[in-house]
């Protein structure tokens, strides 16, 4: 059904962030699934190696969830803790430190939200938190706006990759500013992973066609009617978009150019 990983490996370049090589350019979240079984099935279908998780209080009365580590094997997946829900640099740093104390890795998907309604990131606070955490040895993957200057500042602050949004978290609006994403990719030395806003497979392909290194999504898969099918579609779309980028698309023209010979026609 799909190109084998071996074939892809010969067609693609290695995907490396912070000196670690990753096998999939698609990273996925673990929120919003109807059940843990569905989440696992969707993650497996996505082929993702990196899966994001959030840090929250344990429910002491044990009436609700029992924690995602009962379902996700940290040996099989790289757990990437996020700081979702944090609205200040201090809170974000606290959550990142808690996540690291879980003992799995030094990586954190840093997000500092600046506005409740749009969930758009607070770039200044993100830069501040990145600087602190990078100095503590964290490998910071910094979620940010599709803004070149914020992205450059995050790289300067020590982020191992920068994660501009395609569109707001959970919106499913797809890529709103291809120019901004391409500009960020052209100018940054660290990898660029587009995070948030992908709603369907074509969105994922368009993201990857901009030349970015990867894409992270959650709701686009989890909120699909059939998350396992959508996860498969996303995996194919990410590969397709990546290969299309590497292949180099034909130039766009405002006029038609025939594909068949114009000579040798009958009765001319």
């Amino acid at each position, binding site marked *: 059904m799909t190109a084998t990983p071996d074939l892809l490996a010969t067609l693609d370049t290695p995907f490396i962030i912070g000196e670690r090589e990753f096998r999939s350019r698609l990273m996925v979240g673990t929120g*919003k699934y109807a059940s843990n079984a569905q989440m696992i099935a969707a993650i497996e279908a996505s082929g993702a190696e990196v899966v994001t998780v959030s840090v*929250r209080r*344990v429910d*002491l009365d044990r009436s609700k969830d029992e*924690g*995602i580590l009962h379902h996700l094997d940290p040996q099989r997946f790289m757990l990437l803790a996020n700081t979702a829900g944090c609205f200040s640099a201090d809170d974000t740093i606290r959550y990142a430190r*808690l*996540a690291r104390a879980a003992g799995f890795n030094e990586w954190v998907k840093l997000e500092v939200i600046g506005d409740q309604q749009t969930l758009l990131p607070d770039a200044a606070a993100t830069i501040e938190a990145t600087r602190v955490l990078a100095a503590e040895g964290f490998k910071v993957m910094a979620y940010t706006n599709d803004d070149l200057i914020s992205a450059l500042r995050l790289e300067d602050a020590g982020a191992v990759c920068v994660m501009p949004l395609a569109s707001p978290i959970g919106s499913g609006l797809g890529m709103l500013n291809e120019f901004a994403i391409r500009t960020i990719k052209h100018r940054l030395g660290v990898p660029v992973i587009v995070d948030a806003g992908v709603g369907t497979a074509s969105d994922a392909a368009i993201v990857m066609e901009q030349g970015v290194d990867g894409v*992270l999504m*959650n709701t686009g898969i989890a909120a699909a009617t059939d998350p396992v099918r959508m996860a498969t579609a996303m995996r194919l779309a990410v590969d397709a978009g990546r290969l299309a980028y590497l292949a180099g698309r034909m130039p766009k023209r405002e006029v038609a150019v025939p594909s068949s010979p114009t000579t040798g026609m009958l009765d001319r």
Partner: protein
Amino acid sequence: MPNEPPATIFRRMTTPLVHEPSTIALTVNGDKRTIAAGTSLSAYLASLKLDPRLVVIEHNREILRDRDAYPSIVLGAGDNLEIVHFVGGG
């Protein structure tokens, strides 16, 4: 000095009886909780049926990175504990 009473009896007669409180109050994940005085962190986690490997503890705003230290940490009155774990998220 054979006529002096034994020291223990002397103390009992002169020192007012101090009642060691049998329980203490602390805050756990924002809720007031009462536990037996002298409870260690590892014993408290066990009473909550929590696997120490699957949670992270912040004790009075200090993140505990050494799980081997849990048995020697005795919870005190007024302590603030945050017990967190990983849940699904993007």
